[in-house]
């Protein structure tokens, strides 16, 4: 095999990311996608505080949403939801 070496910065020191770490995109780890039922959601933010990957977003206007570029689909958000407002749906049911 021909070798494909990669450029490496000085002493492998890399700049810290600011929003997402684009070097390790993890959305393709997911086979069950979290889907929030906004009718049930009480916006208690348990899912938000419990996400190991910081991929649950919350805003006053839109409530809970998910960063699907990075969500690994672990289901912790669904498990901790006190009202069962987060469903886990097979990823291939979605076109995107």
């Amino acid at each position, binding site marked *: 095999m021909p070798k494909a070496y990669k450029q*490496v*910065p000085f002493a*492998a020191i*890399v700049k*810290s*990311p*600011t*929003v*997402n*770490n*684009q*070097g*390790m*995109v*993890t959305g393709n*780890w*997911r086979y069950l996608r979290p889907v929030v039922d906004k009718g049930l959601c009480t916006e*208690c*933010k*348990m899912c*938000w*505080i*419990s*996400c*190991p*990957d*910081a*991929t649950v977003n*919350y805003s006053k206007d839109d409530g809970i949403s998910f*960063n699907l*570029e*990075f969500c*690994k*689909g*672990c*289901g*912790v958000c*669904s*498990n*901790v939801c006190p009202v069962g407002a987060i469903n*886990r749906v097979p990823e291939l049911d979605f076109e995107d």
Partner: protein
Amino acid sequence: MAVAEMIKSIAQAPEKEYYLPGHRTCAGCGPALAYRLIAKASGKNTIFIGPTGCMYVANTSYACGPWAVPWTHAQITNGGAVASGIEVAFKQLIKKGKIKDEFPNIIVMAGDGGAIDIGLQAASSMMYRGHDVLFLMYDNESYANTGIQVSPMTPYGATTMFTPSGPEIPEAKKFFPKDPMAIFCSGGHPEVKYGATASISYPVDLMNKVRKGLAVEGPAFLHVQCPCPKGWTYPADRTVELGKLAVETGMWFLYEIEDGVKKWNYMPKKLKPVEEYLQTQGRFSHLQPEHVAKMQAWVNQRTQLLGMEVPLPPAQ
């Protein structure tokens, strides 16, 4: 940080993330959740030291990392020593006027191996010398980065790659774990003015303990239990649930020791039988009733030793 501002509820937790999406930790990783909450609590003016472990290797795979704040690797052996060097350097460089930085929060994020096993010497010395560093032990109860091998924190009766169960050794791991709080925060390290146990399942408590640990002058120690879906063998969505169950069964405790005074942060009304906890995890699936009884006896003894006065399940 001079005086820590306490967080009263999840709604008041800081929104800003410093442990960002994009790391190769397991789906449902307990230590990753710990990292996120700790980084949230400590904020922008923070430097992390990451001794080798899952939170080094899985987080920085492929020459990148998820931190919005400075982070450096340390060997699994020397997190405490590297942090000591960083701390004195900042003090000295600031004193000499060579840099204009505000003195940062310095946090060592060591796994159980890097804190209480191979890294114990460096951790102990850092605390003895009184460096203004928060030494944080994220405890997933094994050497998980190398594929789950036994550590001193692995519970009695758990299987790992190095402690399989077999006819000669039916209970798998034979020894009960070390008690890091007893080692670091019970007077043996006089400079340590603040020490606490915490759990990822009690996020507000955890974040406030991080802030308290950073607010005290000198070293602080935080022992955070972090369920590990791979090593403990349970479905990844149950991480937070299991952290709670550990507390409810006496497999984990939430207390802090400030200036030598112990305070309970959460005490269940009565302990659930430890079997309820054991049966949730594949690592205990081989245990026989006598092993479960031995575990319950240990839990009961430990509960009494720590002074938690709650009704206990019977130990046969």
